[in-house]
C-alpha cells in the first residue's frame, strides 16, 4: 500500500527511527515535518474559526481536514481557510476519518502528526507544547489531557465515571498516568503513525484500549495538560455513545488486548 512520496529528501528516513534522528531543538521546524489532521462532520459553524486560530498560532504547519461525509459546507469552508481537504464518500465515523489522516501521513512519510477536533474545543495555544513534547527522543505519542489541566471538563456523570475507570485501568497497565484516554488532541511520531494507520487501530474511535495497545507495542505515551476552550463545551462531540455499550466494548477490548500475545517491542 506504499505510494511514492512527492516530498523527497530527509522525510524518507525520519519515519523509521523515532528518537535518535530528530532532535534539532529550538529553531523553527521545516514545514513538511508536521501535519495537523482534523476529522470534521457537519462543522461548518466552527471549522472556519478553528482553522483561523491554528493558523494564527502556527502558520507554518499545514492542516488536513478529513471531511467525514458532511452534508453541509464543511469542506468548502475548510478549503477557503487554507486547509487541504479529503472527503470521505459517506459518513464513516470519527475513528475512520481520523485514521484516514494517519494513512495519508504514513503514505507521505510525514514524521509528526497532530490530531485535533474540529468543534473548537481544543485551544490552538497548546499546539506548540504538544509539538515540543512529541519531538523529545523518548516519546512517541503525546496526549493533551483535559483533566491534568486546570479547566473543568463537563461530561455526563456516568460517562465521566467510565472514562475515569478505564483511564485508571490503562494507567495501571501502562505504568504511567493516563487521565484522558479519549482526548482528541494528540500528537504522534514516526512508527506510531504507521501503527495508527494499521489494522490495529480501533475502527470506531480510539480510547484507553488503544493506549494500552500502544504501550504493549513498545511506544512511549505521555500526557500533557491542555485546557478546553470554555465556549465550546456544550457539544458532546461525535462520541455520544451509549454508556452501557461503551463499558462493554471497552472492557472486552482491554481484556482481549491483554490476552493477545505481547509483540516484540520495537
Amino acid at each position: 500500500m506504499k505510494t511514492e512520496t512527492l516530498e523527497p529528501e530527509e522525510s524518507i528516513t525520519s519515519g523509521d527511527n523515532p528518537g535518535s534522528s530528530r532532535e534539532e531543538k529550538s529553531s523553527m521546524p521545516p514545514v513538511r515535518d508536521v501535519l495537523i489532521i482534523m476529522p470534521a462532520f457537519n462543522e461548518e459553524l466552527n471549522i472556519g474559526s478553528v482553522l483561523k486560530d491554528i493558523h494564527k498560532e502556527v502558520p507554518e504547519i499545514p492542516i488536513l481536514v478529513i471531511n467525514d461525509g458532511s452534508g453541509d459546507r464543511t469542506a468548502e469552508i475548510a478549503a477557503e481557510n487554507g486547509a487541504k481537504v479529503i472527503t470521505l464518500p459517506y459518513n464513516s465515523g470519527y475513528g475512520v476519518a481520523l485514521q484516514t489522516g494517519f494513512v495519508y501521513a504514513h503514505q507521505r512519510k510525514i514524521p509528526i502528526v497532530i490530531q485535533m477536533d474540529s468543534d473548537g474545543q481544543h485551544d490552538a495555544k497548546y499546539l506548540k507544547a504538544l509539538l515540543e513534547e512529541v519531538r523529545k527522543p523518548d516519546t512517541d505519542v503525546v496526549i493533551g489531557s483535559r483533566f491534568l489541566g486546570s479547566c473543568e471538563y463537563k461530561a455526563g456523570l456516568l460517562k465521566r465515571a467510565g472514562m475515569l475507570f478505564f483511564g485508571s485501568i490503562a494507567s495501571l497497565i501502562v505504568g504511567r498516568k493516563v487521565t484522558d484516554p479519549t482526548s482528541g488532541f494528540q500528537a504522534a511520531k514516526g512508527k506510531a503513525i504507521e501503527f495508527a494507520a494499521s489494522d490495529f487501530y480501533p475502527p470506531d474511535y480510539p480510547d484507553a484500549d488503544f493506549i494500552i495497545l500502544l504501550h504493549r507495542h513498545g511506544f512511549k505515551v505521555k500526557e500533557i495538560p491542555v485546557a478546553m476552550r470554555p465556549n465550546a463545551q456544550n457539544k458532546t462531540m461525535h462520541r455520544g455513545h451509549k454508556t452501557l455499550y461503551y463499558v462493554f466494548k471497552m472492557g472486552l477490548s482491554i481484556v482481549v488486548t491483554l490476552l493477545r500475545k505481547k509483540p516484540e517491542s520495537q
Partner: protein
Amino acid sequence: MMPPKIKIIAILICIFLLSYVFELVRRKHLTEEYSLGWLVTGAAMLILSIFEDLLKWISDLVGATLFTSTLFFFGLMFLMVICLHFSIRISALTNQVRRLTQHVAILDTEKENLRKAISDTSFEETTARRGKL
C-alpha cells in the same frame, strides 16, 4: 417410530432446501463458499430423516425423548455455526470497506490535485507559446 407425516414433510423440506441452494449456486446468486454450510445442513437433515435408526441412535446418545427434537437441535446447531460464520465475514468486510473508503478518499483528493496541476501547467504552456508568437 416417527409419524409418517412428519417424516415425509421433513424429507420434502430437506430436498427443497438442497435443490434451492443448488439452484442459487448455479445462478451465481450464492457463492460456493456460503453454500457449503447450507448443503451440509440440508444433507445431514435429509439423512437423519430418511434413516430413522440413525436418528434413534443419536437421540438415545444425547438423551432426547423425541426424534423431532433431535432433528431440531441439530438444525439449530448448524444455523448457529452458519450465523457465526456470517458475523466473521461481516467483520472482515467491514474492515475492508473501511480501508477502501480511506484509500478512495485519499486517491480522489490526489487525483483532483494532479488534475489541477496539469491544467495549470498546460494553461501556462499555452500562454508562454502565445507570448513567443
